[in-house]
Every structure is written in C-alpha cells, then in structure tokens.
C-alpha cells in the first residue's frame, strides 16, 4: 500500500520519483503542466483534449504522463480534468507562477491577495492573483494563476483562500 492511499496526500518526492515534476530548465521556458494523478484509473479526457499530444496514456486505465517538451501550457487539460489534479507551473516571468483549479466561493479577482494552501490543507504563505480564467460554461472550474515570491510554493501550493472577502 502506498502512503497516499492512507493519507490522501501525495508527497513531492513521490511525484518526482514518478517523473511528474518538470525540470528547472523547462520551467524557465514557460508554463507547463504538472499532473498529480498517480493511480491507474479509467479516465482519459486530458489525453484526448491535448492539442499537441503532449500527454501519453497507453490505454485508458493508465495514469497520464506529460511530455514536458511538447506541452505548451495551454491549460486545456486542467479545464477538463475531473480530478482537479493538474496544475500549471511557470518560471519564465519575473516571479514564479502557479495555476490552481478552483471551484469555491468567494471567487478571487485579479490583483487580490490569496493565501496559498498545501496538499494537507495547511496555509503556506501569500501570493497575488495575476491571471483568472473562467473556462466556458461547459467546465465551470476557474483557473487561478498566482504569482509568488517563494518558488517553493510552485511545488507545494495546491489550494487557495481569498483574503478579506
């Protein structure tokens, strides 16, 4: 039994071991998808929706594997993922950025400060919302892009809370 099956939390180490964490070099080139879908479950929308075939999935019960060199960071897979298990990481801008799928109220606005939360539900620090995508009516998960000072948050922040609303 893997630890995450007991805790509901996957560690960064484990994700690295699976090869799910994009390299520093790739992150400097622009946004790229990091998947945290680690089980072999029957699900393939990310694979089917990817416009550049950057997601490998030998068959529907296989977990997705992102080819980071092919991925263009378009977020289509994030929009469609039923597990909300895909995040976008980017170190090509002035400050590092992480994009998180968000389906709660209150909805943040561009420029808002948000508290970033880790996989255990613990507060990690603050960030500023620099991008907000409300995907079309069909998907209805907002994608919130947050700029952070501490680049560690890219790898650990997986939820957020709007401050002062």
């Amino acid at each position, binding site marked *: 039994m893997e630890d995450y099956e007991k805790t*509901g*939390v996957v560690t960064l180490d484990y994700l690295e071991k699976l090869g799910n964490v994009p390299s520093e070099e790739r992150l400097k080139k622009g946004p790229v998808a990091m998947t945290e879908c680690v*089980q072999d479950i029957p699900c393939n929308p990310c694979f089917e929706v990817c416009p550049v075939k950057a997601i490998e999935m030998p068959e529907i019960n296989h977990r997705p594997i992102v080819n980071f060199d092919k991925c263009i960071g378009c977020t289509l897979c994030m929009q469609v993922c039923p597990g909300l298990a895909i995040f976008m990481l980017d170190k090509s801008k002035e400050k590092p950025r992480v994009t998180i799928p968000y*389906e709660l109220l209150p909805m943040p606005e561009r420029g808002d400060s948000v508290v970033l939360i880790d996989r*255990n539900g613990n507060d990690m620090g603050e960030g500023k919302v620099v991008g907000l995508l409300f995907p079309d009516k069909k*998907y*209805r998960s907002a994608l919130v892009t947050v700029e952070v000072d501490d680049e560690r948050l890219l790898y650990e922040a*997986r939820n957020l809370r709007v401050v002062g609303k």
Partner: protein
Amino acid sequence: MSDLRIHNHPILKYVRGNPLKFYFEGDERIGYESETVGAALYATGLREFSHSFKLDRPRGMFCAIGQCASCRMRVDGVPNIRTCITPLKENMRVERQMGAGDKPANTSRAKTYKKDLEADIVIVGGGPAGLSAAIYAAKFGAKIILVDRFPKLGGQLIKQTHKFFGSRKHDAGTRGIDIAERLIKQVEESPETMILDESEAFGYYEPGMIAVAGKDTLYKIKAKKIIMATGAAEKALLFENNDLPGVYGAGAAQTLMNTYGVKPGDEIIMVGAGNVGVIVTYQLLQAGVKVKMIVEAMPKIGAYFVHAAKVRRMGVPILTRHSILRAYGNGQVEGATIVQLDDNWQPIPGTEKDVDVDGIAISVGLRPTYGLLNQAGVKIRFVPELGGHVALRNRNLETSVKDIYVAGDIAGIEEASTAIMEGRIAGLSAVIDMGLAGKEAEELRESVREELKELRAGPFGTRIRQGLEKVEVL
C-alpha cells in the same frame, strides 16, 4: 425560523420558482415551486419528520429519494406520503406521522382513475441507464413508456455536480448535471416515448405487465419488453442511535444541497471514504458546510486518490481505521463518538472521541433495488462485489425471465458512465430481440460492449469483473 437555503454556489444556480405558503402542524411556512414537501420542511429547520412504528423513536430524512420510510408524513389528511419526492403545493397541510398513521381523513382527494396502456418497451427508472435505454431503443422506432418516480427525470445524475471520469468519447470531463440535462432533452423530444413521471412501478403480476401508480391514475402497462433500471439505495450502518434525525445517507445530503439548494447541516462528519463519501464531502464544502472529518473503517481510502486529495487540501482530515460508535443528541444529532479500530475491525478501548456535529452522513455503499425483479421471479444472486442482490443475465442484459432486461445500478453498483452504457445495451437488445432492428443495432451494441469492457479493465475494475463472472452466466 431558520432558512437553510443556499443562495450562492460556485457551480449551481438554483431556480426556485414562486414561493408557496404551506402549513406544518398549523404553522405557516414558505417553500418554493421547485421543492418537495420534505426539502421545504428541511429548509425551514424541521429535523423530526415521523415517529417509528413500534418504539416511537423520532425519525428524520434519511435517503431523500423515496427509498426509505423515514420522511413519511400526513399530507392533506393522507398518511404515508413520502415527503422527499412529493412536490410542494400551495396551502398544503403537513403533519408529522406517528407510527403507521391514521387512515385518510377524507377520501375525496384520493380519487383515482384506471387506464390500460400498451407499448413495445416499458422502462422502469429514469436515471442514466433508463434514459439511455430509451434513447437507443427509440433510434430504432420502438414505442416506449418510461416510468419514473421523481418529479424530475435524470435519477441521481441531476445532483452530480462534479465532472465525470471515464472516456472523453462518453462525456468524461463533463459534469453529471450537464449530462443529465442532455439525456433528458433527448428523451423528452422523442415522439415515440411517453413519460410517466411521479409514477411508481409497484407490481409485476403477470408476464409482460407492469402496474404503475401515477399522479392520479392507476396504470396497467402491457409491453413486449421490460427494462428494469431502478437503480440503488444507500446502505445503512449499524451503530447506536443510527436512526436519530440528522443521520442520513451521503446521497441524501447531496440531494438536499444540489437538487434543492438546502444545506443539510452546518457541521458534518462523513462516514466512509469511498468515492461517494469524498465526492459528497467536496460538494458539502462547496455548499458552505463544514465537514469536520471523514472516518473510514478500511486501512486505506477507497476513493480515487484525486478525489481524496481535493478534500485533503481543503483541510478535511481522513481517518482510516476509524469508525463511528454512536450518535448522540436530544431528539436530533448533536454529535458522534468515533473510535479507532484494530486490524480485526474491533474498537480499541480508550480511543473514543466525541465530535460535535449536527449531521452524520453515511456513505458505506449502495445496494441494488431489486424488488420488482424478485416479484417477476427473476433468478437473483447475492454478489458482494456488485453491492448485493442482482439478477443473473446474459450478455444482452436479459434476465432469466424472458423479455425482462436490467441496466445500471440494479445490475450491480458501478458508476453513471457504466449505467449509461448498460442502458444502451439493454435498449438495443430489446429492439433487436423483438425484430425492430438488425445488423446496424447489433454492431452498435458490440461497440458499446467493447467500450464498457475497456472502462472496467483497470485495477479499479477488478471487483466488478469478478462480480460479473458470477452473474453473466445465462
């Protein structure tokens, strides 16, 4: 008076319609056109709906989908009305029912008509399986009657606000509520399909005949083929005070908040960390309900990891090897005592802990509702891997009684996506077997079978495959 109605939701927009005045034991209350009597009462703070038959214990809403007897009340003088599936009407008079209830005060309201109907296929149940069966059978010109218990078609799909897993070809990534809307529209637009909603199929008395209690009419429906797609009911769990109002199925919580926009409580504990438990937990959080924890008796989380991860990062602890020992509270739930279990599933003394909550949601699995099949004399087998009693069947989903087919959760507890595919197979089989369709339908059926097989091929499908081996024997 409290109002537990939800007004802002990240996914849903509640269209409630006009307010309706009604009376609970003489007390004026306000509900809405979109609500059932039970939802309106719950929204206005009622927890105690009835008293039990023998021991006079208070009972609250438990299943919210007409499967249990907890919310039966006296409505306009008529006892035993399942308030959870009865649409609210202006000026209704509702009273708590004590035990079996007195006989109707005045029988004029109970005036009913009788009618005989005929069809090629009668489908019992308007959830994903029943709707899909109707759509695929209608493609080949079958005259269909679809019987459904609820005021609104769609079964349990209409409360599934999450995006579906599965194959992109079959709507994965689309929310259940959107899939429901599309399926319902297709059925409603089919000129060959007659829909009997708010109608209960209650009897199979002679071959090819289903007895149905409609809104004000008793129907005898004769059909060449019958497709049973009656779905499932939530299992109960044995613990002290498990009948206390405020103990309810996770699905009931989901119905209240997602179908009717009513908060099931303010602070809840979830029992069971399978997919239903964690998905409903996530939806409770979306509705603004605090979920204090999820307890799971198994040593590991049964749900897909990604679902569990969603609630964990929102701060909800999942305690494996923990269970509920008892519910406490005066007349309604005020808390739950939880306990750690050892490797033999026994409570470890000294690990008991009281958690103050106003709701206890139970998600320990579903069981197929096979009553009508039993009545029809279909060969049934108890198969734990499929959730309980299910019909033996052949590859076409035809049971041991000729002309009766099964599809969806009644055939074994799985998911909406598999129910949709089974519905298609049953619908196609019915039209093929009665000679309405030929090669085209057979090819279509084969391709659906292939896709279904693919979905069940992974490690999470192991138990289902084992279960199917025991029943797909005809």
